[in-house]
C-alpha cells in the first residue's frame, strides 16, 4: 500500500531521530518519522509497582534478547564479548538510559593528531558547541558550570544533589588530589519546562515515572509534533528503496498489522542506532547497491565501538543512602582521560560514580559474588552489603577496528522475517590494559573514600549501552560512509544521524554528542537546502 509522499522521512524515534525532527521541521518540508515501537506510558513504568526491580529485569530489561517485546528484533551476540543493549519505542534507548550527559572534549575529535591512532573527525568541538548548547536546553541538563576538563559551558539547571554516597566518593578523589566534578545529567533538578523535578526514585534504568529524566518522548517529540512532524508507530522499516539513478526514494515497511507498506520521500534519514542503522543499510541491497546501501567503501557495519566498561565497588562501614537518587548521575573524573605513555596504553578513560543498589539487586550481586550465604548467616551478610556499597564505572575509549562488526545473520530474523543483526566483537589489548589500570585507580579512590573492601567486575559483558562507528564519517568516500555533515557519499539524499557515524568513541557516554551531531546535520541541511543534492 502506498502512502502520501513526504519531504523528509526519518527512521527511528530515539535520541537522534527526535532531535533531528524538531530541528528539520523548521525547514517547511513535511516530516514523517517511522518507529517500530510504541509510545510509552509513564503509568506502566516499573517504579509504579512494589516489584519494580523484577519488572525491570523482564519487560523493561535493557537487552532486546531478554525482553522479546513485539517492537524488539533479536540480535545474535554469541560472537561478542559485550551484549548490545537498547530500547525500541518512541524515545528509543533514552527510555531506559541513565541520562549521564558528558560532552566529548575537544581532543576527542583529534585522536590521530594527538596520539597517532584511529582517525581525526572531519569536524571539531567548536563546530558542535552551539548544538551541544541547544541540546542541553532541549533535553534539560542539570550540572555545575566550570569543569576544568571542558571548555566553559552553562547547564540550564543547577546540579543534582550528590547524596551521601556521592559526597563520600568525591571526598576520596579529593584526598588523592584527582580531578572530579558533579556530572552533567539530563535529569531535572527543579521544575523545568513543564517537567517535575527528580524525586530520587533510583529506578531510572527502567523508565522514569516522574518524567524527570530526559527521554525524548517527553522532551523533543512534543516540541517536534507542535511543529507539524508526524510520528507513525509500530512501523518496522524493511529496506530503503532506490531509483534507477541510485538515489533513495523511500522505504518499504511493515505496519502494526504486519502489512507491507510503501512510503516515498525526497530525503531519507537513518536514526536506528549503531546496530539498527547498519542492519537496515545491509538489508537494502539493489542492483545499484549490491553490497547494501551506501556501502561502496565496504565499511557499513565495520568499526563497531561499544565502550568497554569495568565496575568497581566499595563496601563501607557507614550507611550510604545510596539506592536513592538518579542511578548514573553523580560525579565523573577525567584524571586518567588523556594518553600517558608510561601507562602502557593509548588514550584513556573516565570514571563515573554510580549510586548504590536496591535490595533485590544487592541480593543478586551478593549471591553471585559468594558474599550472601543461604541459611543462618544470610541476614547479617545482607545487612553488611545493603546500603553499604557504592562504586563507579570505568568507561574505556574503544578504538575502531574493522574486525568488530555488525553483519546480517544468515538465519536469524525478526517477527517480520527481516534478517537480524549479528555482532562480532573482541576486546583489544589496549582496552584490556586500560581497564586493568582503571580498576586499580578506582579501588584507590574508593579506599581513600573509606571503603573497607573493594570488588571489581573486570569487563561488564551486559554493558553494550553505546553503539558507535558502524557507518563512520569522513572526507574520503573510500574510507568512510558519510561526509562531514552526515550525507552518504554514495546516496546524496540519504543522511545518517546516529552514533553509527562516530569516527572514534571518546571515553565518555555518547548521547549528548549524538544529539548535537543530529542537530548540526539538520542545520546543514536547512542551510544548504537549495544545493543539497549537488
Amino acid at each position, binding site marked *: 500500500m502506498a502512502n502520501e509522499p513526504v519531504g523528509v522521512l526519518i527512521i527511528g524515534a530515539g535520541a537522534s531521530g527526535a532531535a533531528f525532527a524538531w530541528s528539520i521541521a523548521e525547514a517547511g518540508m513535511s516530516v514523517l518519522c517511522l518507529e517500530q515501537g510504541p509510545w510509552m506510558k509513564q503509568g506502566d513504568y516499573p517504579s509504579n509497582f512494589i516489584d*519494580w526491580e523484577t519488572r525491570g529485569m523482564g519487560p523493561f530489561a535493557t537487552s532486546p534478547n531478554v525482553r522479546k517485546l513485539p517492537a524488539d528484533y533479536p540480535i545474535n551476540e554469541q560472537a561478542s564479548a559485550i551484549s548490545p543493549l537498547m530500547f525500541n519505542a518512541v524515545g528509543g534507548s533514552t527510555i531506559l538510559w541513565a541520562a549521564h550527559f558528558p560532552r566529548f572534549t575537544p581532543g576527542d575529535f583529534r585522536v590521530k593528531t594527538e596520539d597517532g591512532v584511529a582517525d581525526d573527525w572531519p569536524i571539531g568541538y567548536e563546530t558542535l558547541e552551539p548544538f551541544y548548547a541547544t541540546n542541553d536546553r532541549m533535553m534539560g541538563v542539570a550540572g555545575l558550570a*566550570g569543569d576544568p576538563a571542558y571548555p566553559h559551558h552553562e547547564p540550564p539547571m543547577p546540579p543534582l544533589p550528590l547524596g551521601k554516597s556521592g*559526597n563520600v566518593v568525591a571526598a576520596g578523589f579529593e584526598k588523592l588530589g584527582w580531578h572530579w566534578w558533579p556530572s552533567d545529567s539530563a535529569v531535572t533538578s527543579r521544575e523545568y519546562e513543564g517537567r517535575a523535578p527528580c524525586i530520587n526514585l*533510583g529506578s531510572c534504568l527502567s523508565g522514569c515515572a516522574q518524567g524527570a529524566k530526559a527521554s525524548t518522548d517527553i522532551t523533543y517529540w512534543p516540541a517536534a509534533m507542535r511543529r507539524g512532524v508526524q510520528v507513525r508507530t509500530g512501523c518496522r522499516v524493511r529496506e530503503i528503496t532506490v531509483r534507477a539513478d541510485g538515489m533513495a526514494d523511500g522505504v518499504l515497511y511493515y505496519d502494526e498489522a504486519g502489512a507491507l507498506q510503501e512510503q516515498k520521500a525526497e530525503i531519507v534519514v537513518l536514526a536506528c542506532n549503531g546496530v539498527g542503522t547498519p542492519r537496515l543499510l545491509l538489508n537494502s541491497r539493489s542492483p545499484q547497491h549490491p553490497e547494501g546501501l551506501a556501502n561502496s567503501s565496504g565499511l557499513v557495519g565495520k568499526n563497531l565501538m561499544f565502550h568497554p566498561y569495568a565496575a568497581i565497588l566499595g563496601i563501607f562501614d557507614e550507611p550510604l543512602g545510596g539506592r536513592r537518587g538518579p542511578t548514573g548521575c553523580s560525579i565523573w573524573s577525567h584524571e586518567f582521560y588523556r594518553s600517558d605513555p608510561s601507562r602502557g596504553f593509548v588514550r584513556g578513560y573516565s570514571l563515573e560514580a554510580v549510586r548504590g543498589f536496591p535490595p533485590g539487586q544487592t541480593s543478586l550481586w551478593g549471591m553471585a559474588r559468594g558474599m550472601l550465604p543461604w*541459611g543462618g548467616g*544470610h541476614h547479617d551478610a545482607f545487612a553488611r552489603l545493603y546500603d553499604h556499597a557504592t562504586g563507579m564505572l570505568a568507561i574505556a575509549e574503544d578504538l575502531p577496528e574493522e574486525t568488530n562488526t555488525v553483519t546480517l545473520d544468515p538465519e536469524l530474523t525478526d517477527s517480520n522475517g527481516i534478517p537480524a543483526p549479528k555482532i562480532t566483537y573482541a576486546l583489544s589489548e589496549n582496552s584490556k590494559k586500560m581497564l586493568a589500570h582503571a580498576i586499580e585507580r578506582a579501588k584507590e579512590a574508593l579506599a581513600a573514600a573509606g571503603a573497607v573492601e573493594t570488588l571489581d567486575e573486570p569487563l561488564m559483558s551486559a554493558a553494550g549501552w553505546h553503539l558507535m562507528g558502524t557507518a563512520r564519517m569522513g572526507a574520503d568516500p573510500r574510507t568512510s560512509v558519510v561526509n562531514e555533515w552526515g550525507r552518504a557519499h554514495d546516496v546524496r539524499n540519504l543522511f545518517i544521524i546516529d552514533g553509527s557515524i562516530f569516527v572514534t568513541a571518546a571515553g565518555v557516554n555518547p548521547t549528548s554528542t549524538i544529539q548535537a551531531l543530529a542537530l548540526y546535520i539538520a542545520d546543514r541541511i536547512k542551510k544548504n537546502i537549495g544545493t543539497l543534492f549537488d
Partner: protein
Amino acid sequence: MSDATTPLRDPAFLQAFLDTLIPPGDDGRMPGAGSLGLGETIVARIEAAPMLGPAVGAGLAAVRDAALERDPAGFASMPPHLRAEVVESQLAAHPMLILGVGLHLYPAYYQHPRVLEGIGEPPRPPFPEGYTVDETDPALLALLEARRRR
C-alpha cells in the same frame, strides 16, 4: 527412596526449603522466606528456566530423598539445623540448586513489603512519593568553586 511428584509442587516441602535458604531473623524483624507466600511465583519462574529449571528439580528431589532416608517424616518435619545439613549434603552433586532457586527467590523476597520494612525501607513502590537524598557537601562545593573554569 524417590517420589514421582516434583518437590516444587509440594507446598510443605517448598515452604521448608525456602525457610532453610532464608530463615527468620533472630530478632523477629526479618521473616523466613517460606512464610511469605512467594512459592507460586518462584515455582513458575523456575519451571520456565530452560537450563536451571531441570537442575533445580533434580536437586530438590535429591534433598527430599536424602531427608526421607534420615527421617521418614520428611524434610518439612525436620528441625531447621537438620534441614540445613541435608541441603548441604546434596550441593556437591547438585551445584546449581542454590543459584537456580536464589535467582528468583532473592529478588522476590527483597521486594516483599514485610522484608522492606525489616531492612528499614518504606513498604511501597518508589513512585509517586519518591525519596530524599543528602545535599552536596558545601565544603566540597567550595573546593570546586575555587577551581572553576570561567
